[in-house]
């Protein structure tokens, strides 16, 4: 019974990992379209991706969009988390549910809502519009992670500082901010990943001039097969795992999920 369960779980884990393993493997295969298992090891697809101006441009747009959105979301989200954790507020549960709600909505619904609204004010197909949409979508992740880290440390440290005569702003910058910093950084990292991978909302708002990397990948795999897509995907997988796993295990442990 126990051995059977172990075998079953091995198979389930393989199912879970299969597409990722396949994408990584095909990035190193020499045939002109991605097949698994790959034949002959090569690194040419990584060169090919880097030499492709469309993909490189997309990478640049994605990096810029995600950086700006992350900075905005981290500032906005940190302030909200502070308000929720450190103050008595009437209707706190409702407010925090409201602030976290953007993750609950289906992306395609938000995408259409933002499209019809942005159309009225001329924000579709603009960088500003994309930043606004991304900030909306990723701020909840910052709030959740910063709240988790603020709830961990002892408020009496702040009280002590105030009792010793520190002003509110001094307490904030010398005590609260340094102690919350790991949570804020974790929130920023997570928000950045979420923004960088966002596809649906961006797809409806972006227009031809602002094709992000996920949009390019989406279009490529729909109409052609090219192992350089495996190559760029492999880079993303490796980077996200390297920066994402520590954040996840430290702050989004299952109880916060």
């Amino acid at each position, binding site marked *: 019974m126990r051995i059977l369960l172990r075998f079953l779980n091995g198979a389930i884990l393989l199912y879970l990992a*299969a*597409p990722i393993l396949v994408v990584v493997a095909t990035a190193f295969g020499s045939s002109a379209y991605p097949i698994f298992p790959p034949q002959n090891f090569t690194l040419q697809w990584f060169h090919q991706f880097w030499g492709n101006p469309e993909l490189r441009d997309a990478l640049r747009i994605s990096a810029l969009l995600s950086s700006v959105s992350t900075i905005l979301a981290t500032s906005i989200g940190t302030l909200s988390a502070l308000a929720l954790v450190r*103050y008595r507020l009437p209707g706190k549960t409702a407010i925090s549910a409201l602030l976290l709600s953007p993750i609950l*909505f289906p992306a395609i619904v938000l995408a259409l*809502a933002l499209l019809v*609204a942005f159309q009225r004010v001329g924000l579709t197909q603009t960088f500003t519009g994309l930043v606004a949409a991304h900030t909306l979508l990723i701020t909840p992740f910052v709030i959740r992670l910063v709240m988790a880290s603020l709830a961990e440390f002892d408020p009496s440290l702040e009280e002590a500082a105030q009792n010793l005569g520190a002003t509110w702003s001094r307490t904030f910058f010398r005590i609260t901010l340094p102690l919350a910093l790991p949570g804020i950084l974790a929130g920023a990292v997570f928000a950045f990943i979420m923004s960088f991978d966002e596809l649906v909302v961006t797809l409806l708002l972006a227009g031809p001039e602002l094709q992000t990397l996920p949009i390019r*990948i989406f279009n490529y795999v729909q109409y052609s097969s090219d192992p350089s897509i495996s190559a760029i995907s492999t880079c993303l997988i490796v980077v996200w795992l390297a920066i994402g796993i520590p954040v996840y295990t430290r702050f989004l442990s299952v109880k916060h999920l």
Partner: protein
Amino acid sequence: MQSWSAKPPRSLAPWALLAPNLLLLLLCLAGPLLLLGRISLMGYEAGHGMIPIWQLSNYSKFFFDPFYRAILGGTFLLGAEVTALCLLLGFPLAFALSRARGLQRAILYFCILMPLLTSTVVRTFGWMILLGNNGFINHTLLRFHLIASPLHLMYNVTGVIIALGEVLLPFMVLSIDTSLLNINPSYYEAARNLGARGPRIFFRITLPLALPGIVSGCVLVFTGTLSAFVTPTLIAGARIKVMSTIIYQQAMALLDWPFGSAIAFTLLLAILILFAATLRFSERRRTS
């Protein structure tokens, strides 16, 4: 929670901290959703665009036209199928995860988190390589003469279920794992001391106490399937239509925003009702 303040700076301070976020939600969430609701009640005429009247015909078209009703039914059926698959595969894995300790748990946890941190587009691309007529699965089965001709796994519901099940499985596993970890171990001891054996303990203690996790996992997977856009588009192409893909089609290809908005609003409502029902369920359990 302890509140900061022996001396609160000003009672308006928390509202000042919340202001940027509330403004963002007002401008980019509440406003757009209201507008979406309004547009879903407008008329549309090809060549003229939207007609600013009040009517319900977009909704009646979606619910009563056989073509669209089939899509509505198909989307919910797909949700049920993917949820069943995830529950079937997720429970054994969550059970093992909740029992594992130390390094073993860390490794299992990593394997379950890895897909969550990989974008859906990339994972679906992996499934396209695996499921195609010349893909790895068909290639292997043909080589070992297990099948005579390639199985059709792409461009149909089977492929969508296989790929979406994989995409959403981590949510099921993590949610069941949470409730299994919350079970007080002394229950098991008590049951054993009273003479209960493995299967009886499993069905009388483990399963009922894991129910909240199972329910929330099922809701996450079901609503995840209803809102899934990338995987159905890439795996099924134009062959299989679900609610999210026809919303996209109406909005971007046919430009019938009023009808697209009506479908989007229906989808939104279905998902909010499901979340509200789960919340009621978990609250009732907590109080009883």
